[in-house]
């Protein structure tokens, strides 16, 4: 293994060349003798992938490698998966202030203090470059990056997860607007309007009304030569226009059955497109989501398994279980199982389900994938499709990326073992054609230290 890694040192140097410097004459690269898993669920044994200029030129078990290609030989021991796509990630966002001061006029705190910042662009604000490397190590090659915030935290930009200078790897900006029912930060005494759920609902409406009026004034202003008041520029309201035109969906975070109902209500009233983000209790609205053709970028941030169940499984002694306690446990287990089978039930109902970390620590992904496999009712192929093609489809890039196909963007990860196995580690990551290599660690501790 070490030997062939050394053999590509030259290539590692080569990839330092920025994307802009590439041209039609770029040599191809190839990954040979690997087990390829596609998002469609096909497995290609002893397969080969050839890519050039960031695009897959050929893929299959019987592929001839171009003479000019740099070749990595997988030695039949590596597993290749389409690059995972994070449908809404916050891991590169600047953190929220630790403390919010009491606003001077809590009833009219201004957009920013209220959590209304739809004009903010992640590509201008991204903070944590090292998080990109971490994401690659966990198999992610593409991510829709959003910003931390409250009811309207900002735009969502789509990135390749492949470089320190992230701005250069922007695929598309403004693919959606982040939204949630979260009130302005702070509590009684130092909070601000909207400080309640009902305030947030009202504020959404008022923003739409204000934006509509401003837009109309701008249109009238443009239509006459003189004698009409100049509309005041308002970057916040103007940032809502694409959502009002349904050109930009709201990536709306909602988890409970009730919140999803409230989202339907708001959508019906204000008429915008929606991608449901997180949707932890989405199964309770599965039929309605399907009918309305609302896709879900699902959370896999599952609750902790009930402690008593863990103890029971491990055979630990405990005090007598009363009848009342038994009934409680039964209900608690049902609640737990409902949460971990949420995605399965959404899929069964015909809802398109992709994946969004949306604040979940990336290190927790593997643990939760294991739960999905063991008790969540999903197969490895279903999980893979959710993490790749289905997320790509929801983000509107499914025809370009999401699977390993000729003509698709060369974004994939090479793992030492099938990605669902606990010991699996990423050895190479190719994102938008750009290759990164990782050290293989031998223990959890080392992994964390890195």
């Amino acid at each position, binding site marked *: 293994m070490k030997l062939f890694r050394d053999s590509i040192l030259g290539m590692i140097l080569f990839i330092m060349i920025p994307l802009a410097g590439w041209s039609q004459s770029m040599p191809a690269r190839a990954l040979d003798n690997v087990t390829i898993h596609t998002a469609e669920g096909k497995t290609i044994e002893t397969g080969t992938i050839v890519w050039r200029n960031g695009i897959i030129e050929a893929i299959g078990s019987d592929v001839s490698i171009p003479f000019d290609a740099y070749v990595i030989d997988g030695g039949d021991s590596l597993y290749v998966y389409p690059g995972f796509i994070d449908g809404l990630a916050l891991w590169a966002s600047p953190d929220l202030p630790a403390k919010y001061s009491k606003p001077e006029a809590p009833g*009219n705190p201004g957009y920013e203090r209220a959590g209304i910042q739809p004009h903010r662009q992640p590509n201008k604000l991204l903070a944590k470059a090292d998080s990109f490397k971490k994401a690659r190590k966990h198999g992610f090659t593409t991510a829709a990056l959003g910003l931390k915030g409250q009811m309207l935290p900002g735009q969502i930009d789509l990135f390749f997860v492949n470089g320190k200078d992230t701005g250069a790897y922007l695929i598309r900006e403004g693919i959606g607007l982040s939204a949630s029912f979260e009130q302005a930060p702070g509590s009684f005494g130092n909070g601000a309007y909207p*400080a309640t759920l009902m305030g947030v609902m009202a504020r959404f409406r008022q923003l739409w009304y204000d934006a509509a009026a401003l837009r109309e004034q701008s249109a009238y202003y443009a239509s006459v030569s003189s004698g009409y008041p100049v509309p005041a520029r308002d970057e916040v309201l103007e940032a809502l226009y694409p959502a009002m035109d349904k050109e930009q969906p709201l990536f709306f975070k909602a988890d409970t059955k009730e919140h999803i109902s409230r989202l339907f209500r708001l959508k019906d009233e204000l008429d915008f497109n929606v991608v449901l983000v997180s949707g932890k209790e989405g199964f309770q609205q599965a039929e309605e989501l399907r009918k309305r053709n609302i896709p879900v970028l699902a959370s896999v941030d599952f609750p902790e398994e009930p402690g008593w169940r863990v103890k029971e499984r491990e055979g630990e002694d405990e005090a007598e279980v009363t009848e009342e306690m038994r009934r*409680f446990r039964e209900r608690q287990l049902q609640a737990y199982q409902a949460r971990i089978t949420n995605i399965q039930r959404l899929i069964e109902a015909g809802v398109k389900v992709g994946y969004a970390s949306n604040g979940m620590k990336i290190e927790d992904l593997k643990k939760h994938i294991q739960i999905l496999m063991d008790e969540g009712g999903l197969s490895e192929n279903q999980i893979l499709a959710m993490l790749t093609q289905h997320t790509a489809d929801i983000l509107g890039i499914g025809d370009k990326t999401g699977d390993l196909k000729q003509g698709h963007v060369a974004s994939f990860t090479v793992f030492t073992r099938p990605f669902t196995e606990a010991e699996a580690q990423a050895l190479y990551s190719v994102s938008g054609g750009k290759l990164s290599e990782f050290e293989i660690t031998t223990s959890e501790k080392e992994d964390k230290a890195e």
Partner: protein
Amino acid sequence: MRIIVALMYALLGTFLSGHAQEKGSVLIKHGTVLTITNGEMENTDVLIERGIITEIGQGLVAPDGVETVDATGKYVMPGIIDAHSHIAGVHINEWTHPVTAEVTMEESVNPNDINIYWALAGGVTTINLMHGSANVIGGRNETLKLRYGAGLEELPFEGAPQTIKFALGENPTRVHGQGFGVQPRTRMGVEQVIREHFDAALDYKRRREAYLKAKKEYDNRPKGIPPLPVARNLRLEVLADIIDGKILVHCHSYRADEILMLMRVFEDYGIEGYTFQHANEAFKVAPELRKNGAHTSVFSDWWAYKFEVYYSTAYNASILNANGITNSINSDSGELIRHLNHEAAKTVHYGGTSVEEALKMITINPAIQLGIDNRVGSVEEGKHGDVAIWSGHPLSVYSMCEKTFIDGKKYFDRERDDDDMRLKIDPEADYEEPARRWYEREKYEDSCLQGAIVRFGEEGMSIQQGSY
């Protein structure tokens, strides 16, 4: 005839609600029926079909498939209506601005709150889920039927008029004047906040209508200068609706002077059909309340929990009632709501109010105040099948509510009252959690202070030393 009545109401209900609420049918036999509007009827049967009371009489026979409940020796009364409640709320108070009419408790309903079930166990079927009292003009309230387990969409009382919370006195002046240095700092300021906002609403309505008219004309025939848009404004729109009589005001108040003040303001703007909530000094201005057609909704015997409510009397409800004011007894509490029958009974005990009048204070009177008295609040043919069966007379402390029906469907049955009636379990909650009660956790909050020093400073009241 009764089938026609039932069909008519069922049809009407469908038109009004837009979605189908689950209705039930039941025949309750041989009970003593406290009709509220037609006296007490012994050994009487009540038939509810598809959610509507279709017949009251003797010897009624259950139609095919309709369950019969034997109420021999028991009392049947309309479901209790609580005109002031904060159970089943996600958030209660959008406290950030002195006027927040644009928010509505309809969008702050928690259908899974166990307090709903506990209220049903006290024979309550309808509540006025109120916004809090930090604002002079708070959010709109939501009238709910306690259809526990039916979900968010099924709780609102279909067709009930909108009501809105106002608040006078210490709460809005403390939160806004004292807390944020904005109007209102005084009771005078409270009045001005109301007047200024009403005037702004009238102005807005005029400007908005003028703009819409001009826009229509311009868009049809674009000549001259286009109109300047007047954005739709939810807050002012709701305030204009209050002035237009489309929304009923329920005003948190204590002192007689502020009650008089609001009646003067409302007279100026032509607002009618309002209710003073708490109104501990209302007895002092009972004739004035009567003259203005104002209602009151009070505690039976609760006061002295802050300065402005230092002065009150357990005779308040009885005095108001004797003066011909439509008065209700409310809970404002997840605990009191479970025994509003006792609270009503206190008016008999203290003020010598008749049993019939006392019962009205938790049934038809709050229904009048919420604008739903043509549908609930009494056992009458054509009204909703919202009834409760009690083991004895509901004003007796020995009686218990045994079964509670809403729209003829049973939502509480003491015989099937399991230990854990929560609708939703947090998978990470611990076993002990449901046994805890909020009023136990906070039981020291309203206790008597001994040997304390209370200081009033820039930041409000602080308590030093002393013990509970």
